[in-house]
Structures are given as C-alpha cells and as structure tokens.
C-alpha cells in the first residue's frame, strides 16, 4: 500500500477530501466522541531523531481512533546503534505493524523505507527534505481560518533556507494559487532552486527582508525559528533575529482575519503578547496535528470515515 512521502503523493482533490475528513474528526480528537475506527491496528513510531509534537500527535491520533502504537524508543539504545541498516529495521517493523510513521536525519529515508516495506509509510520528516503531515495540518489550520485555500496571500518568515516545513508548505500553497511572500534575512533566504521551481509552476513569489512591511495585506503570517548556530557571529544573529520578532504592537495594521502560525517550538520570534490576540493560531495548529494525522492514518489504512460522526462519549 502506498504511503505519504511527499505532498506530490496527493492530488489537490485528495488534499481537500482529507481536510474534510479531518474536520469531521474534530470531536474525536478532542475526546468528545469515541470512534474506534482503527481498533486492532498498530502504528509503528520510528523516530530516529528527536520529535515532540509529531511523535506525540501521531500517537494521540492512533489512540483516539482505538488503535495501538509501538515505539522505536531511544535510538541510542535500539539496534540502530549496533549498525543495523534502515532496510533491516523496516523489515522488522513491517512485520509488527500495519502502518509506520517515521522521522530520519537522512534525506530520502522515507522513500527508501517505503520501497522496503509492505505497510504504508507516513513521512514525519527526512533530513531537510519533506514533512507532508506537517503541511497537511498547516493547510487544515489555514482552511479552518479562511474557509478555503485558494488565492490566499501568505507570508513565510524567518529561516526559509533550512526549514523543511516551509519548503513543503510553499509547494502545496502554490498548487492552490496562493501568493507567497518570503521574508527572511539574506543568509536564510529560500533556496534559489525552490524559488525558481515555484515560479516555474506559475507562483507569484516576492522576496523581502522586511517582515513588518509585508504583513498589511497578508491572510497568513507563518513564522519560523531563526537558529543562532546558523550565524557566524552573535551580533549578526541578534540583528537578524530582532527583525523577525513578532509583537502584538506589529499587528495593529493587519487584516482582521489574518492568522499567525508557527510550527513550534518558538523561542523569541513570537512574543507572548501575540498569544492573546485574535490572530494567534499556533497552539490550535499544534492540536490540528492530531486531526490531520487521524485523517491520514485512516486514509492510508483504507478505513473510510463516516460522513456523519456520532458516537458514545468516553
């Protein structure tokens, strides 16, 4: 069975369909309704590098749907440290589980695992490559706020060079005709090959270093963390990071329905003063990881989600 390795594995129609499934699963994700659609199914969580939200939300998603989860555990104490190949690890887990969620430091690991496995693989991040389940929860959050994805104006800000989240999301947004504004310090600009690839797909892309000046007409401002270790000296870091720190006072001129998103964890790039504004969506976004992953687990396991969800409360 095919997994989800990159967003190219899904058509726009499938994306919208899965987001609709996720919407219907909201009461299940909140624990208001018990819907054991995945009872008897086992998810293998293979996180070869640290993850908090992705791993926990996969686990929550599976358990809310009545399924079970087995974890690889700490890589340092697993057979990986003894030199086991990814191929062998996958062969083993393939036999234990019905579906695998995986994060790996090497790019291409998810496709490699899919080629080795019988069960579907959900790519939870492969090096600087893809992170499609994050993209699905981001799209869900945007659709939830604006009612649609088409033609929105989206500012992506911060570290656009190394962030796989913004790479996957940019490609997906362009498929829905969104205008993209990339606001980042020169050192952390979106890679040129990605910008030209997006433009070759007809995207309207603007690049700027001025975050605050680019927010006026935005429907979404997607912040990312600027990491100190990317900079040669501390002064340069302080200067750059300071220009990409969002405070409630920066939001006075923005559109009423503009939303601020962040894949988390945040450090200094969103001041806590933003949390209480109508624009803050990052904690809902993190919660949406559960519904988006519930919908994807069902889809890849071939389990249909009822058109109308009713069930007994827990």
């Amino acid at each position, binding site marked *: 069975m095919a997994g989800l390795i990159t967003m190219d594995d899904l058509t726009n129609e499938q994306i919208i369909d899965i987001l609709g499934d996720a919407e219907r699963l909201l009461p299940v994700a909140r624990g208001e309704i018990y819907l054991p659609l995945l009872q008897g199914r086992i998810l293998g969580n293979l996180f070869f590098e640290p993850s908090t939200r992705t791993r926990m939300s996969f686990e929550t998603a599976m358990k809310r749907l009545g399924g079970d989860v087995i974890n690889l555990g700490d890589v340092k104490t697993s057979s990986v440290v003894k030199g086991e*190949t990814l191929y062998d690890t996958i062969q083993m887990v393939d036999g234990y589980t019905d579906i695998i969620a995986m994060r790996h430091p090497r*790019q*291409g690991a998810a496709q490699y695992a899919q080629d080795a496995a019988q069960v579907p693989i959900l790519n939870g991040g492969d090096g*600087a490559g893809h992170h499609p389940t994050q993209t699905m929860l981001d799209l869900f959050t945007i659709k939830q706020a604006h009612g649609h994805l088409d033609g929105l104006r989206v500012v992506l800000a911060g570290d656009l060079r190394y962030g796989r989240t913004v790479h996957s999301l940019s490609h997906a947004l362009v498929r829905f005709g969104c205008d993209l504004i990339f606001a980042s310090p020169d050192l952390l600009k979106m890679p040129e090959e990605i910008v030209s690839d997006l433009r070759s797909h007809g995207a309207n892309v603007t690049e700027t270093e001025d975050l605050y000046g680019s927010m006026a007409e935005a429907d979404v401002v997607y912040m990312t963390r600027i990491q100190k270790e990317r900079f040669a000296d501390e002064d340069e870091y302080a200067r750059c990071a300071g220009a990409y720190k969002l405070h409630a006072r920066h939001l006075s001129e923005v559109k009423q329905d503009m939303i601020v998103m962040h894949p988390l964890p945040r450090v200094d790039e969103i001041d806590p003063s933003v949390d209480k504004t109508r624009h803050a969506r990052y904690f809902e976004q993190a919660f949406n990881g559960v519904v988006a992953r519930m919908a994807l687990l069902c889809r890849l396991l071939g389990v249909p989600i009822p058109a109308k969800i009713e069930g007994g409360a827990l």
Partner: protein
Amino acid sequence: MSNEHSMRRVTAIRNGTVIDHIPSGQAMRVLEMLGIGASTAVPVSLVMNVPSKKMGSKDIIKVEDRELNQSELDRLALVAPDAHVAIIRAYSVAEKLTINLGQEVVNVVRCTFSNCITTNLREPQPHRLKVVQRDPLQLRCHYCGRPQNLSELANNVL
C-alpha cells in the same frame, strides 16, 4: 574536413574500443567516468574538438586491447548518451554497441547529495537516479529527490 579525416588524426587500432561522437570537450569526463587514467596500462588515444558533420565538433577516444562492458556503457550514458561505440578486432569493426540511457539509472552511480540515505553503502536497496531531462542531462535521486551534480558523478561510480 571529412569525418574520415578526423578519425585519422590517430592511427587505427588493432583491437579495442573506439568511442566516437562524444560531445566536444567531454572526452576527459568520459575517461574519468570509465576510470581510465594514469594507472591504465593500455594505450589510449584521445582527440578533442575535431570537426564533425553531424555535431559541428566532437571528441573521439580509442582504447586499445580493452572492450567496454555493459557496466561501462551504462556509465558512458551519463556523459555521452549519444556517443557511438565500436569494438575493434583485427582492425575491423566487430561489433557496434548501443548506449541506452533509459528513464532511470540503476546501480551505476550513487547520489551526489551528501546527506542522502544511500550514502550509507551498507544499505542494500539499489541506487536509483531518475532521468528528468536528456539534453542537457538532468538527474534526480529516486530517494532524496535532489538534482544531481553531474561534475561529481565520476567520483560516485559504484
């Protein structure tokens, strides 16, 4: 200048391989890709930038006492997919070999991206590069999706 004249810039070989119609300036890369260099014991002749009716100009390589095998043809496909390869025996063309650059190059070279999963050579699945475009050649790794750095491919021959 005739094609025949171009071929005569170096003497005919008795036994071996002639690689003709190499894109002009690519002969050194062909040698690199085939692993033919200073340590090669057999005589190797090389002419570069000779006039060609078909190509404008071209390079030619003659390797004596060595017949290219399939794996070498597969490597050749990555630098000169339209080259002509003839096996020479007793001064005559005994065989014309076909270079076949298909949709995918399997187990010929490994991905040039340093953080690709396939850089762990103990991983047993095949090295797969997809041919995205033939002219000019563009390859992408099946696994990591990265465009390949063609100038590094010769270092990554399997």
